[in-house]
């Protein structure tokens, strides 16, 4: 799982072909930090099929709002740079994230 920021988001996510999953998180979001180990585990499991990235929105607030993310945690799945699916808040569980990945593989 790679960390992306407002400088690298375009190249690593929007200009990347195939599936890219982005974990929008921040240090002040306790739910995000609780969820992160589950996302890391999914990153290992789907390493060959999906690129996993995390974006700290505290340093990329405008970028997040531009991606229509106004609440944490939000997990977005991109395909060929286009947002195709997301889960957020209470729905952002390991099970739901994996279901979203499998639905779009």
């Amino acid at each position, binding site marked *: 799982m790679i960390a992306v920021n407002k400088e690298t988001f375009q190249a690593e996510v929007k200009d990347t072909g195939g599936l890219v999953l982005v974990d929008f998180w921040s240090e002040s979001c306790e739910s995000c930090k609780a969820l992160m180990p589950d996302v890391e585990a999914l990153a290992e499991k789907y390493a060959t099929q999906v690129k996993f990235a995390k974006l700290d929105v505290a340093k990329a607030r405008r970028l997040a709002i531009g991606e229509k993310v*106004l609440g*944490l945690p939000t997990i977005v799945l991109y395909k060929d740079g286009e947002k195709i699916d997301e889960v957020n808040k209470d729905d952002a*569980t390991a099970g739901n994230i994996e279901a979203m990945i499998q639905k779009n593989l």
Partner: protein
Amino acid sequence: MEKTYDVVIIGAGPAGLAAGIYSGRSLLKTLIIERSKTGGQAVVTNEIDNYPGAEGEETGPTLIAKMVKQAEHFGVERVADEVVDVDFEGDLKKVTCNKGEYQAKAVIIASGAFPRLMGCRGEAEFTAKGVSYCATCDAAFFEELEVYVVGGGDSAIQEALFIARFARKITIIQNLPELTAAKSMQKKAFDNPKFSFVYNSVVEEVKGESGLLDTIIIKNEQTGELTEFNADPEDGTFGLFVFIGLVPRTDVFEGKIAMDRGYIPTDENMRTNVPGVYAVGDCRIKPLRQVVTAAADGAIAAVHAEKYIEGGE
């Protein structure tokens, strides 16, 4: 494979952690199961002004971190998993989770509560798109933007004061003719020039053109009058934070123990109607839901669970 414990605690908020500290300190083999974030509602609360000893720089996360450290010091195990079924019938209670199954001589339910929804049109669609129930998670998105806060109780005003550190303007939408928060907190809000107040009103609908929240329609319940708030076109969006009470997270216990409108009745020793099963914190029927009362519940339940395990009650 099933693992067997003396005490399994469901939920790692202040009630569950306090139960863990007491149970671990009594040398009982103790497991705390948490589905999501350790610390429950307290860990997403910035100010914990009224918990004894938590003065000065103490916040929800710092206080919870200390409780976790204390529980671990007493040998309490913790696992991140969600309880999907329970069987309280035998002497050994069974707790089934997504990833594993556990057995325990006593179970302490500390499953807490989650924020009540408004129930208005558009609410689900705009959650995490402008509608939020967690200030510490999302307030920073609204730096220099406008924010509406639904509710007039302690939580609503306390969280609104936190959001005001970021937002340029706060509008409180309260369904009653006045606020119900503690007077000291009300004064802070009334004295803050960023605050304005709308009374006797509820949110009727939330909308947004571009996928983000940009319109809130409220209804005055006394006059029936509808008022529409629109985001400043330069901002494009605004926030709507909802703090209108809680709903107990007890679905999984339905039919397994006595319940009353989702809450678990207990006696003053935290016993439910099933011997060896206790309920603590916000999920039980009680007059005051605070960190201090949650911690006290946990202590009482752990002490009685120990007596129960030793055959004393």
